[in-house]
């Protein structure tokens, strides 16, 4: 989904606030929220990591930007626990003695009909174009590279395709490739002419570039 989480390149944020000698957790509940997620994924198998990332993406944009990291973690865990039927909203709001903001509902996502290829489709040096897709559900292809061309500089192992995995669709493992883009191709002439951005992309997101 083209959501608020897809922040790469968004202008208008002010300076980056850096805290000196920052602790791992600012308050004990942050560590608890972190451990709850690890428990839910690792021990309870209540959901997978792609569903978890997408649950956070489905937070209302106002809530998403207002919340710091561990409140986003908490909201992702709690939303999925409700959606999976492990707990109910009423139970959580009763125990919290107050309103418990959850993520917006999941979109209905259909399988893309693709199958895993036996061999990697791309090799180092290939010139590729990122498909200009706008899925309603989870995706890991940032808006800022869609439609752009770059060069494959590394082929990583197969990993589960998140657009399917986040929606309970038949799982498919495929290689991801590190694609290098010129900053100017992404951000226009204001960008430094020598700077580059590397994005790690599943093969499904890519097609052979023009004129190849």
């Amino acid at each position, binding site marked *: 989904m083209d959501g608020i989480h897809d922040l790469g390149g968004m202008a208008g944020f002010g300076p980056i606030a850096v805290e000196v000698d920052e602790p791992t957790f600012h308050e004990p509940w942050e560590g608890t929220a*972190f451990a709850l997620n690890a428990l839910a994924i690792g021990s309870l198998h209540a959901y997978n990591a792609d569903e978890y990332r997408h649950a956070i993406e489905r937070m209302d944009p106002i809530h998403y930007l207002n919340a710091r990291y561990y409140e986003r973690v908490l909201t992702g865990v709690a939303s999925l626990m409700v959606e999976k039927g492990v*707990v109910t909203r009423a139970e959580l709001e009763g125990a919290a003695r107050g309103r418990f*903001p959850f993520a917006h509902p999941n979109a209905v996502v259909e399988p893309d009909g693709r199958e895993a290829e036996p061999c990697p489709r791309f090799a180092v040096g290939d010139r590729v174009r990122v498909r200009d897709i706008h899925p309603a559900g989870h995706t890991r292809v*940032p808006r800022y590279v869609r439609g752009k061309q770059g060069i494959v500089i590394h082929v990583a192992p197969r990993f589960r395709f998140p657009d399917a995995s986040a929606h309970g669709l038949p799982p498919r493992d495929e290689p991801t490739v590190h694609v290098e883009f010129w900053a100017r191709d992404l951000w226009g002439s204001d960008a430094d002419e020598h700077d580059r951005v590397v994005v790690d992309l599943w093969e499904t997101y890519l097609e052979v570039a023009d004129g190849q």
Partner: protein
Amino acid sequence: MANDSEHRGAATPEARTDALRRVLERKGLIEEGALDTLQARLEEQFDWRNGARVVARAWVDADYRERLLADGTKACADLGFTGPQGEYIVVLEDEPTLHNVIVCTQCSCTAWPVLGLPPDWYKSPAYRARVAREPRPVLKEMGLELPPEVQIRVWDTTAETRFMVLPLRPNGTEGWSEEELAAIVTRDAMIGVALVETPESG
């Protein structure tokens, strides 16, 4: 406008976290003390000083360095650093005219076993939004002014690869021990928003 943060009448994140924990306990899904044990184990496992040791080793051991750059996952595992978010580690080698910097624009993915749990600024919308687009001003703002001849490569952690920067070894550290070197490596340097400095240079 339904789903706002606590300032519009929601329970605090603390109260909500506690509520979730208690409801899960009541249902028997969390055993007595299991959460505290898990948290303690993860906090111990995810320590950026692990990454500092990897860097120091690579600086003193050319063979290890080569293996680290060829297969970061395995070379980190050789020092005992493995675990969630460390399944596939790629190490990015800084050069005198090439500077690497890491971000996760879509969430906050990080190589926990070697970089630890990242700081708030790394997870902030401002860093995630800005560094992919204007790395040079962002680095300068954070105290790292790179000479114009140094090219910047930003790595966006959009899939399952987890990155770690192998920073330049600072001048003046010839003959230092691996331990002495590990002590000057910082998490910020392994993310790429700082250089490693000696007490003299810093």
